[in-house]
């Protein structure tokens, strides 16, 4: 099995790492402290084409697929988890439109998202529909006279929702049919009846913006339905598979960086007359961290190449997300521990990385729901 990257992919990694180092890291602590979404960073990503990954050039994209997304997100996550999340989650909307949209929808919306500097968002979660997506309560009622759907309901915890120019929103078109009655819609910022509510204050990932979205008699042209009526659940699940690989890349990146910092620190920090790197207790920590991170990487890259070759990857996506997420918390925790009191201080980025890493166990499906997905795939063949 060959995991080697193409020359172009290696260049993409180099560019992503350079961009993360020069543009994202310098403001990572500041945006965390100020709970500020750095619009300027997103605009720079758009200018260079990161926001068009996975979309063909004819729609303003920059081509590539899951591997390219993984590379960019992984490198960003090393320096700024919030920015990695912003890119990773942004890409869900254009990818859903590319996979399920009509030609008109692709022409109209993709260039705005891929190169136009507009943020994308994906709105499925509701106050009562988290792990249980079937609990969606937002409704979309068809109005024959105007050929429009009228949306009513509330979405919550939507990354980038308040700033997004184009959103993929899920609503019930047949409330009795539960998951078989969900449809997807392409919503534009500014549509009458669509507004954003509360901006959440979070434990970590403070440089990405998480919003509540409110739909009050929001009229959406029927032409904005994404995919077929009542077939939205499949769009949601397929989008989540891809999104989970993105979260895996976030978890991998933050873990890799934490290891690098920990190793550097163990050589600098002298206690009892020698660098703590000489202590076996520390060495065993590092060995565990490195081994698990390498395993996470292998699983993640295997999943990405499965996805790029067009094979099913639902089970693997759940596995790599879950594993990389748990590992991200494990590794950032130990790296912080190795740094002792310094790790707990805001002078070092580890306390931020630790807080940021925690989200990977929760969003785009909690660890627990992933185990459900994995068990179902393994046991119900």
């Amino acid at each position, binding site marked *: 099995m060959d995991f080697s990257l193409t*020359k*172009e992919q290696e*260049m993409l990694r180099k*560019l992503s790492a350079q961009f993360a180092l020069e543009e994202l890291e310098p403001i990572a602590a500041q945006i965390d402290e100020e709970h500020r979404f750095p619009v300027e960073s997103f605009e720079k990503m758009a200018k260079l084409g990161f926001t*068009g*990954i996975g979309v063909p*050039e004819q729609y303003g994209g920059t081509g*590539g697929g899951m591997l390219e997304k993984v590379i960019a997100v992984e490198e960003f996550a090393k320096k700024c988890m919030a920015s990695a999340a912003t890119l990773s989650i942004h890409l869900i909307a254009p990818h859903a439109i590319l996979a399920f949209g009509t030609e008109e929808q692709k022409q109209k919306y993709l260039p705005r998202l891929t190169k136009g500097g507009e943020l994308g968002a994906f709105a499925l979660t509701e106050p009562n529909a988290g792990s249980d997506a079937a609990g969606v309560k937002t409704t979309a009622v068809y109005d024959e006279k105007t050929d429009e759907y009228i949306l009513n309901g509330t979405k919550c915890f939507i990354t980038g929702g308040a700033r997004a120019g184009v959103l993929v929103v899920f609503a019930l078109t047949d409330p009795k049919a539960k998951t078989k009655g969900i449809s997807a819609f392409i919503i534009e910022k500014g549509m009458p009846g669509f507004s954003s509510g509360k901006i959440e204050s979070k434990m970590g990932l403070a440089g990405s913006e998480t919003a509540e979205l409110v739909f009050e008699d929001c009229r959406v042209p029927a032409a904005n339905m994404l995919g077929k009526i009542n077939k939205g659940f499949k769009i949601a699940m397929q989008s989540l598979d891809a999104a989970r690989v993105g979260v895996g890349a976030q978890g991998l990146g933050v873990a890799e960086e934490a290891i690098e910092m920990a190793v550097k620190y163990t050589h600098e920090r002298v206690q009892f007359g020698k660098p703590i790197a000489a202590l076996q207790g520390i060495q065993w920590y590092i060995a565990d961290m490195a081994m698990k991170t390498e395993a996470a990487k292998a699983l993640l890259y295997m999943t990405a190449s499965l996805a790029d070759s067009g094979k099913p990857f639902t089970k693997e996506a759940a596995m790599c997300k879950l594993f990389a997420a748990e590992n991200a918390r494990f590794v950032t925790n130990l790296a912080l521990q190795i740094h002792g009191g310094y790790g707990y201080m805001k002078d070092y980025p580890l306390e931020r990385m630790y807080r940021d890493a925690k989200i990977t166990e929760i969003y785009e499906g909690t660890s627990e729901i992933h185990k459900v997905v994995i068990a179902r795939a393994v046991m119900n063949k």
Partner: protein
Amino acid sequence: MRIYVCVKQVPDTSGVVAVNPDGTLNRASMQTIINPDDLSAMEQALVLKDATGCQVTAVTMGPPPAEGMLRELLAMGADDAVLISAREFGGSDTFATSQIISAAINHLGVGKDDMIFCGRQAIDGDTAQVGPQIAEKLNLPQVSYAAEIEKVGNDVTVKRMLEDGYMKIKVQTPCLITCISDKEKKARYMTLNGINHCYEKPFTLLNFEALKDEPLIELDKIGLKGSPTNIFKSFTPPVKGVGVMLEGADKKTAETLANILLEKHVI
């Protein structure tokens, strides 16, 4: 109008520098980067390309892996790239190097409207010699230490830095300009589309065969053997000893320190 930009792949000396026991550099163990001043020259060329639509050609002399650097420059926006590479060229000093590069550029042709941009100096050798020497061999006017370049018609105005100020110099194309790095004018990034297409852009390999009959090449003045200068000895300076605590805290202590610093050419 075409701008040739001469670039060099160099070991990244800002990180750990590995030295072999014989005092030569262990290049294999070091990361390579595009020489910073050369990157600045490329940016200046690309700014002119943005304004005029001119052609930008990246030129380097080096071993075959230097192609990777040229592809990066193509991904940044250069139109085509030229790799001058041959065993016979290896080990050239600045004189021999400039002879080979000027022969290559002459081979490709320098038009009335063309310019050659170089970085002021490379961080591995810090000589700042290859640019002016190419200019001499091609019989072109040169302006070195350029911080700003403006072009109107065939007139090029350059802000040329001195230690204690600058000169404004007017020169006409064709000419050669060596550029200094400027933190305010950081070179642009590659773009993702640039990366996608950098392997499709024109790429020329000039080997010994291609250049050996060029009039500017004197076969006995290229490569390690032909270079006028030779390394007689290379060595590492003595390792930094443990620190010294100076005695006292009075005028005499301060004078002792000042004398040490004077001795070490620190002041």
